[in-house]
C-alpha cells in the first residue's frame, strides 16, 4: 500500500461560481486530476470542468424498476395461480389485467428506492468523517462560498508548487486540509 500523504490536500476559496469554474478549468489544463469542487448548489459546468461523467445511476434505477416489475407480478402470479388458486366463475387464474396496478406500484417503489440508495451509495454517504471539514471556513460551502480542493494523492501534487498554482488563481484564500 502506498504511503499516506501528510495532508489531504490544498483548498482554495472563491466568491463566485464563475471564478470556481474558471479555476477548475485552469487546474485541469495544468494537469491536475484528483480534485473536487464544492458549491452550495449544483453547478453543471463544475462537474464538466472536473471531467466527471457518470451514467451508472440511471442503470441502477432501471435494474431496480425491472426487479420491482418482475417481482410484483410474480408475487401475484404465485399467489393467485400456484399457492392459492381460486376459481371464480371460470375466469382465468392468471388474470393479468387486474395484476397491472400492483405491478406498476412495485415497479415505482423499487425504482425509487434504487434511485435514492444508489445515489447515496455512489456518493459514499453517509460519511461520518471527511477531511475537508477540518478547514473551518469550509462551513461556508453550504452558504455562499465556492471551494476547489486539489488532493495530495494527485501525481502532480507538490506542496509548494500546487500552493503557488492555487494562489495564482486569485482565490480569496488558500488553506491546507489536514487529515
Amino acid at each position, binding site marked *: 500500500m502506498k504511503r499516506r500523504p501528510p495532508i489531504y490536500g490544498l483548498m482554495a476559496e472563491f466568491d463566485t461560481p464563475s471564478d470556481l469554474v474558471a479555476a477548475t478549468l485552469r487546474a485541469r489544463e495544468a494537469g491536475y486530476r484528483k480534485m473536487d469542487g464544492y458549491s*452550495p448548489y*449544483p453547478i453543471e459546468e463544475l*462537474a464538466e470542468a472536473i471531467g466527471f461523467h457518470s451514467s451508472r445511476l440511471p442503470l441502477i434505477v432501471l435494474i431496480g424498476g425491472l426487479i420491482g416489475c418482475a417481482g410484483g407480478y410474480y408475487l401475484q402470479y404465485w399467489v393467485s395461480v400456484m399457492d392459492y388458486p*381460486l376459481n371464480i366463475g371460470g375466469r382465468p387464474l392468471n388474470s393479468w389485467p387486474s395484476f397491472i*396496478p400492483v405491478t406498476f406500484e412495485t415497479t*415505482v417503489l423499487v425504482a425509487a428506492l434504487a434511485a435514492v440508495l444508489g445515489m447515496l451509495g455512489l456518493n459514499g454517504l453517509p*460519511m461520518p468523517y471527511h477531511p475537508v471539514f477540518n478547514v473551518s471556513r469550509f462551513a*461556508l*460551502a*453550504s452558504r455562499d462560498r465556492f471551494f476547489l480542493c486539489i488532493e495530495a494523492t494527485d501525481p502532480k501534487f507538490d506542496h509548494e508548487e500546487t500552493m503557488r498554482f492555487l494562489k495564482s488563481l486569485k482565490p480569496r484564500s488558500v488553506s491546507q486540509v489536514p487529515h
Partner: protein
Amino acid sequence: MKEPLKTVIVEPGKPPIIEPGHTFASVTDKISSVVLTRRTPRGWYLGFGVSFVLVMVLLYALGKLMVVGTGIWGVNHPVGWGFAIINFVWWIGIGHAGTLISAILLLLRQEWRTSINRFAEAMTLFAVACAGIFPLIHVGRPWLPYWLFPYPNTMGLWPQFRSPLVWDVFAVSTYATVSLLFWFVGLIPDLATLRDRSRRQLPRVIYGILAMGWRGSAMHWHRYEMAYLLLAGLSTPLVLSVHTIVSLDFAVSIIPGWHATIFPPYFVAGAIYAGFAMVLILAIPIRAIYRLEDFITLRHLDNMAKIILVTGLIVAYGYMMEAFMGWYSANPYEEYMVLNRMRGPYAPLYWALIACNALAPQVFWLKRARSSIPVLFIIAIIVSIGMWLERFIIVVTSLHRDFLPSSWGMYYPTVWDWATFLGTTGLFVSLIFLFVRFLPMISIFEMRTILPQARVEE
C-alpha cells in the same frame, strides 16, 4: 464581495419569482434563521397548542373505537362507507398537489415551484399520514391491518389481488414511501446548511446525522441532480396512479353513480384542485407570519389560482358528465341516482358542492381576484369544503338508495365521526407546525439556483 446584480430572471411582463437584491448569503440566512435563530412567534405556541388538543381528541376517538368498535360511527346498512372513506379520499387528494409541484412542475421546468415545493411536499406527507389512518381504522378490527399485506402466514391466506382495495394498499404505501424519499432527498443539502450554521451542539449533531456528511462536492451534486430528476420522473406517473386507483375503489363496483369510466381523470383533477387549495391555505399565513413575501410572491399565488381554475373546470366537467351519463345511459338506476342527488334528501349538500366547486373558483378569471390575498384565502377554504362535500355526495348518495326501496336508509355522522375527522385536521396542522419550526420550509439550495448570480459566466 461583488455587488448583487439587479436583474432578475423574469419572463417579460411577469412579476419576479424572487424579489431582487437577494444574495446566496441572504437567502440562506433568511430561511435558516426561522429554524435556528429567530424567536419562535407566540402564535406558533398558540397554534400548535390548539392543534395538539385536537390530536388528543383524535387519540380519544380512536381509543373509544378500539374499545367499543365501529358501532360508534354512523355507518350502518345500507350506507356501509361513511366518514372513513370520505376523509381518506379527501386527505389523499390534498397530498397530490405537493407531488405535482415537486415532480411535474420540475419536469416542466417551472422555476416558480422552487419556493413552494418544500412545504407542499411536507403537506403531501402529512396529508397521506392523515389519510392512512382511515383505512386502517375502518377495517373493523384495527389491530389487524397488516392482514392487508401479502406475507406468509399460518392461516395460509393471501390478499385478493384482483380487488381494487388491495391495489389501494400498494398505491398508498408506495406513494407514502416515495413521497418521503423525495422530500428527504430534497432536504439533504439544506440539512447540511443547518448543520454548518447552527451554533449549539444538539441541533448541530441532529442535523449533522440527518445530513449524512453532505459536503456539496461537484460529483455528489451531479449524481444528486440525476437522482432527483429520476425521482421526479417516477413520481409523476405514481401520483396519477394513486388517485386513479382510489377512484377504481368506486368505479370497479357496479353501484349507480360509481360505475363510471370518467372517475379516474375526474378524481385526479379533483385531487390536484383540493391540494392547491390547501397549499394556498398554508402558504398565505406562513408567508405573512414569517415575512417570506420576497420568496413566495404574488406571482406564485397567481399561478396557483390559475391551476385551481383549470382543475376546477375539469371537475365541473366531471359533474356535468355524471348528470349527462345518468340520462344518456337510459338506465333507470343511474337516472334515479342523478335526480336523487339533485332533489333527494342530500340535495342541499349537492347544490352546496356545485356552488363551492364549480361556481366559486370562477372569480379567478379576474386578475384582481387572483392578486387579492383575502379572496384567494376565502376561495381556497370554499374549495376545500366543496371537495369534502363532493366525496360525501359520491360515497353517501349512491349507497343510501339501494336497488330495493325496502333497503333505503339515511346516513348521519355521529359525534365520533366528527371527532375523528377534526382530530386528523389537528394532526395535520400540528405536523405542519413542527415542520415549520424544525426544518427549512423553503428549499434553500434551490432558491440559490434561481438567483441571477448563480449563473456561470464563461
